[in-house]
């Protein structure tokens, strides 16, 4: 990240800031980008564990999973996938704007990304509330009403447990991402990202695209289980 000099000159500089423990701008850039990739690797393993759990139980109870998945709304799921992929585009354009030194455009594109992310979360929480009303929320000792095919209620409960766990930690990642993106906007409007000071925007973008990647796999695995049967 860029160094904090706490002097008023920070916003009128035209060259990118290099922290004192780096030799030059290139080295700082490469180190930070490698750092966020290493973090994303740990995220791959974090989500990998949940996906492995899902794979095991889907392998053991394919019928219960197919039945339970029918109760998720494909239209809302598709709409949310569309929204999140679009937010990845606006994020990519924010990074591009930062590389081109167009600071106000960075702010605009990040604001759009935040709006799309918030829309995704809004739909998600509407879905959660709907599941709560239907009694399909196996959390906190809430009543679970769905029995599923031929007494496979336990396996159905597993599906919804996994649904809330996987989409929940995904939504948590989005909330964190949106909160951090909000911090970029005042600086962007003041011209902080002009003059090639693009590193933090690039790092933010990599995180946001990763959240998108996770959803690309979650959507077919949760919403579209054996829909053709």
């Amino acid at each position, binding site marked *: 990240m860029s160094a904090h000099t706490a002097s008023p000159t920070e916003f009128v500089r035209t060259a990118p800031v290099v922290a004192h423990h780096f030799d030059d701008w290139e080295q700082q850039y490469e180190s930070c980008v*490698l750092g966020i990739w290493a973090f994303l690797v740990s995220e791959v393993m974090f989500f990998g564990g949940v996906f492995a759990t899902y*794979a*095991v139980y889907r392998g053991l109870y394919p019928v219960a999973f197919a039945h339970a998945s029918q109760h998720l709304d494909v239209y809302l799921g598709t709409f949310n996938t569309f929204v999140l992929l*679009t937010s990845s585009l606006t*994020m*990519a354009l924010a990074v591009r704007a930062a590389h081109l030194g167009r600071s106000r455009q960075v702010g605009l594109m990040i604001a759009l990304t935040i709006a799309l992310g918030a829309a995704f979360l809004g739909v998600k929480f509407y879905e959660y509330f709907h599941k709560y009303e239907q009694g399909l929320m196996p959390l906190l000792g809430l009543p679970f009403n769905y029995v599923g095919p031929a*007494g496979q209620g336990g396996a159905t409960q597993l599906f919804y447990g996994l649904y809330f766990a996987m989409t929940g930690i995904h939504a948590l990642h989005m909330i964190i991402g949106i909160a951090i993106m909000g911090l970029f906007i005042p600086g962007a409007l003041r011209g902080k990202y002009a003059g090639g000071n693009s590193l933090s925007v690039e790092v933010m973008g990599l995180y946001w695209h990763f959240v998108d*990647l996770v959803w690309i796999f979650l959507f*077919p695995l949760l919403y579209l289980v054996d829909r053709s*049967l």
Partner: protein
Amino acid sequence: MSTTAQPGLSVYIKVYLLLMLGLAATVGVAFIPLGRLNLPVALAIAFAKATLVVLFFMHMSDSHGANRLVFVVSLLFLLVLLAGVFGDLLTRAEISLPSGAPTFDPPEIPLPPRH
């Protein structure tokens, strides 16, 4: 990753349109009865979409070797995890049960008592 040569706007728009195509394919294919092939096809489309995002939105196509290595190795780790889990799961019954017992008959999980 160079700040001097930026990919043009059209690259991002094209990748986005391909992702939309992938989304349409994901939903469309899910409703076509392919039997056991539905899951592999859905995963293949998801991997194609993920590859587009990683290569172009995350600039892996234009990235340094270290970044590529780190990310690809994470996928190998993931494979090791899945291999261990499924290696155990798929052989457990054969090893622990006497011969002649059904090898892949999932037990019913009893529901905890609810009030």
